[in-house]
């Protein structure tokens, strides 16, 4: 008569789960990096009518971030494109070269909500100068905060 088989430990094979999880993790790491490169941390204004659109529907996006900077004599601004601070002259050159590359440039302005309007107006003037007609304002789609 044969002896009864010994009880064996039941284990789940986690190798395939690790594969899938690693793929997802790498995807999110890369995506987050791209978003961060384009978008600085900015306290965007609120607008209930702001539409959540697909990036491809905006054409060739050129994102200009405008950060407010508190100074003793008031609020100044820093223009940032792809995490690089630049002057209005640099911005004009960059925008002009984008405009030469493609005619469908859409200038997306992301500015701090407390920033004086003149800094945003300056970017719109630069757009007009180089012939970029499409200007889009980024906003958070919700009502006014107190």
């Amino acid at each position: 008569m044969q002896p009864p088989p010994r009880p064996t430990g039941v284990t789940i094979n986690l190798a395939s789960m690790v594969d899938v999880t690693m793929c997802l993790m790498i995807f999110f790491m890369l995506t987050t990096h791209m978003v961060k490169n384009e978008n600085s941390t900015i306290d965007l204004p609120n607008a209930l009518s702001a539409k959540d659109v697909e990036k491809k529907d905006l054409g060739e996006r050129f994102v200009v971030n405008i950060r407010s900077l508190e100074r003793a004599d008031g609020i100044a601004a820093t223009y940032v494109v792809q995490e690089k601070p630049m002057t209005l002259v640099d911005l004009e050159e960059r925008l002009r070269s984008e405009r030469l590359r493609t005619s469908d440039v859409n200038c997306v302005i992301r500015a701090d909500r407390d920033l004086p309007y003149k800094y945003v107006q300056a970017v719109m003037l630069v757009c007009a100068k180089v012939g970029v007609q499409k200007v889009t304002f980024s906003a958070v789609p919700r009502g006014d905060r107190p």
Partner: protein
Amino acid sequence: MMSPRRGFSPTLNYAPNLASMVDVTMVILIFFMLGTSVNISEGVLPTELPSRVGPGGDSEINVVPTVQIALMESTDPPGCRIIVMERELVQNTFASLSAFLRERIAAGADPKGRVLIGAEPGVAYQNVISAMDACVRAGFSNIQFSVNTNVKIDVN
């Protein structure tokens, strides 16, 4: 004399334990998933500069808007004063601006007509966006901005 051990092959004991690796990977995965979803939750308000302005830019053009809105700096009340067609709103809020514009459309104004928003240089950007938001919510679709070319800019 000892008999040889029977049962499963001893090679099974060398499989690495992946449970702790899965734990760490899942935590990192959840972190990136949440981080990404925070970054992409923003909407847009599109506008177009008048085609006669560029290229060459900052030239003066004459336009006849359906509605003209001016935002003036104000300390009392704090924020800005809203002036529509050269008349100040009774209630200085963007909700009343939206209601006023809705009345204009009900009275026969063309919702595709040009709405021109102008703001003083010191007005907070949020107020300009709120004015644009009020126009869109009222039903106007062609919103444009007038700009002052003689403003000094401090850039850091």
